[in-house]
């Protein structure tokens, strides 16, 4: 795996930093951090599937939404305990991931992106039409059981969740599976030629991604306490997830976390200066420029700077 001491040190520092934050920043900032944490989880989920393999998902909210809706409906409508509802939601999300996988076995590139988009739109339509008594229809549901109260608790819960997922995903991508997934993105037929089963690999990537999406979605809805189709199955949500990954740096796991924090804080810190619609305009504009001129992301920029420093130091 090529783990080195500084890897442990970096993750340890990150954990320490997260643990100390509530002492250092205001509650309002903590609230923003919670959203950043959840966005980071969704971005990691996207990165697991799309970052390396080249299978760009435009419909990731499909998976997140299924996790969120399943847990919300189970707890709110059927009185299921949250401890049971969340694992069920994760399983349901993974089954949904399998369904998307079927067409994905045959198509790639832009077509794959489109079919995932179609799945998301389909879900948006279905949630409103089929059994609105369960889903709450167009308006969604409110008063869903929350796991925590207060900014600090919510922050710790989301941070632990994000941290565990991030470390697990990061370790995963450092194994041979990670290498194989990268190869899948670079040249699918070559991977096939080397005797690895691309189907199994793809399935693995899908399942891992769906697992994280379902878990994140379920915890997210029990943080928000409410759910609406427009909040989840929305192209703006896709936009935020993808941009978080790309601005941070795809296929690195660390990058999406950076991207998620950057985007969430950018939007929140623009609020006092640009209260209205200008905010989204500037925010989108910055995202576009960053992506156009730094397609490898902030992570790559930082690593480059680090390496050049390192070189200078060793010279």
């Amino acid at each position: 795996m090529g783990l080195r001491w500084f890897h442990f040190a970096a993750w340890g520092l990150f954990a320490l930093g997260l643990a100390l934050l509530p002492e250092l920043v205001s509650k309002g900032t903590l609230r923003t951090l919670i959203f950043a944490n959840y966005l980071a989880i969704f971005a990691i989920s996207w990165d697991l599937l799309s970052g390396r393999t080249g299978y760009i998902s435009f419909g990731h909210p499909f998976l997140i939404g299924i996790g969120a809706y399943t847990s919300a409906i189970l707890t709110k409508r059927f009185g299921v305990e949250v401890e049971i509802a969340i694992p069920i939601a994760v399983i349901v999300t993974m089954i949904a991931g399998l369904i998307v996988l079927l067409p994905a076995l045959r198509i790639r590139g832009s077509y794959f992106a489109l079919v995932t988009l179609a799945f998301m739109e389909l879900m948006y339509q279905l949630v409103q039409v089929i059994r609105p008594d369960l889903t709450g229809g167009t308006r969604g549901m409110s008063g869903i059981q929350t796991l925590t109260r207060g900014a600090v608790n919510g922050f710790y819960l989301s941070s632990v969740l994000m941290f565990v997922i991030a470390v697990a995903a990061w370790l995963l991508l450092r194994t041979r599976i990670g290498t194989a997934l990268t190869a899948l993105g670079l040249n699918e037929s070559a991977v096939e030629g080397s005797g690895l089963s691309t189907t199994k690999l793809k399935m693995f990537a899908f399942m891992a991604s769906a697992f994280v999406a379902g878990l994140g979605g379920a915890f997210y809805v029990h943080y928000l306490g409410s759910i609406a189709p427009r909040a989840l199955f929305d192209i703006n949500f896709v936009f935020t997830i993808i941009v978080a990954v790309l601005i941070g740096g795809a296929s690195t796991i660390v990058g999406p976390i950076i991207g998620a924090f950057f985007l969430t804080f950018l939007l929140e810190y623009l609020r006092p200066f640009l209260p209205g619609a200008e905010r989204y305009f500037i925010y989108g504009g910055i995202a576009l420029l960053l992506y156009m001129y730094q397609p490898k992301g902030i992570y790559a920029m930082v690593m480059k700077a680090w390496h050049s420093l390192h070189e200078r130091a060793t010279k």
Partner: protein
Amino acid sequence: MKYAKGLGLSLAVSLLASTALAEIKVGFIGSLSSDTGLSTLRGAEMAIQELNAAGGVLGQQIALVTADTGEDVTEGVKAYEYLAETEEVDFIISGSIDDVSLGWLPRMQEYQIPTLDTWTSYIGIIDMVIEDPETMAPYFMNIASDEALATLYISFGADVLKAKMGWESVVILAEDTAFGGAITGLVTDALGPVAGIEVKDIITYDINTVDFGPIFSKAKATGADFIYQVSSVNPQVISSQYVKLQVPMPMTGVNVAALGMEYWEDTGGAGGGISTLSPVPSVGFDLDPVSAQFVADYQAKYSTRPSMPHFNGFNAYHGLKQAMAAASEAGGFQDVKAWNAAMLKQDLKLEKDGKLWLRYGFWQHGEVEPVTGRTYPQNGLFDLSPPYEDAQPSMVVIQWKEDGTVGVVYPFEYANTELELPSWIKN
């Protein structure tokens, strides 16, 4: 360096300013780019301006901060958190739309900040107040709930559609689950027995439908006398296509876009012939002197759209003053129970020509409305039966005429014009 110093200084000054003057902080949550959101915001601004000019509340000046939702549910949650934990406001006034309000409600329950909703009319929220009065104590909604709107529509059906127009059957066009199964069900069940209007069919349509031609053809094929359209947020397409296709069948219902003066401009005049339910006061609604003065002041102050506040602008203006009066009585907003009790007692009666015209008050807990037989605690007062001596009706029906004028057609006590068929419909 000089710049940094200046920045530091101004930062220090602003810090001083915010700590030196004790003030009451009001947060606005809603869209800053929609007529709906701006109506509430400006209503609140004007109330605050007047209160401050009169010396403030509890000896403190009132300050207003805004948090834009962009009508996005998740942004709504963030906006509420921002007001609660970054701005630490004392009171929140909301111009949010339905799903956005539902989105931040769990936050309100957690923070327990007194909050007044001026646009959302979702009965589901009032049901939450009934089920959980404890955590919903800070929440007030000073617009008649949609269920009460629908109930008065049944009377409109009996008094106008059946008695005057002679229509005996209806086909309902419902947008997805807009007002929820309960409201559509209420209209469907009550129209027959109460108004004597037979419901031929209910056609549910997809909100993104491009061509309503087939749907209108389907409605026509039912042989019903008129169409009742039930939609919530995005009804412009169906009503404009109704006009463009010159559907040879009368149509009435709910068209949120038609509630503002800009409707005529936005539709390029293609909105003639459309009638809609509207909470009061709406466009075309005769105003009492107090409301008229509010509109005059509003127009003197703001030059951009909406040129006349929507109903929620009035709600915000009076509602904010009432919330402050309640705070004076309760010694501030901190004691939510005391504020809630004081807010429930608020009662503003506006008269026009000696008749009670508008009333801004709230239903009490356990107070049963005689027509529907249910309670509406912390919901704005309304009256469902003529001659509307207890409060204003829960809604009026307004109609945009083909010459661009607009007026109220029902209830008769408030009417200033009559329901007309669009010119393309032959009797």
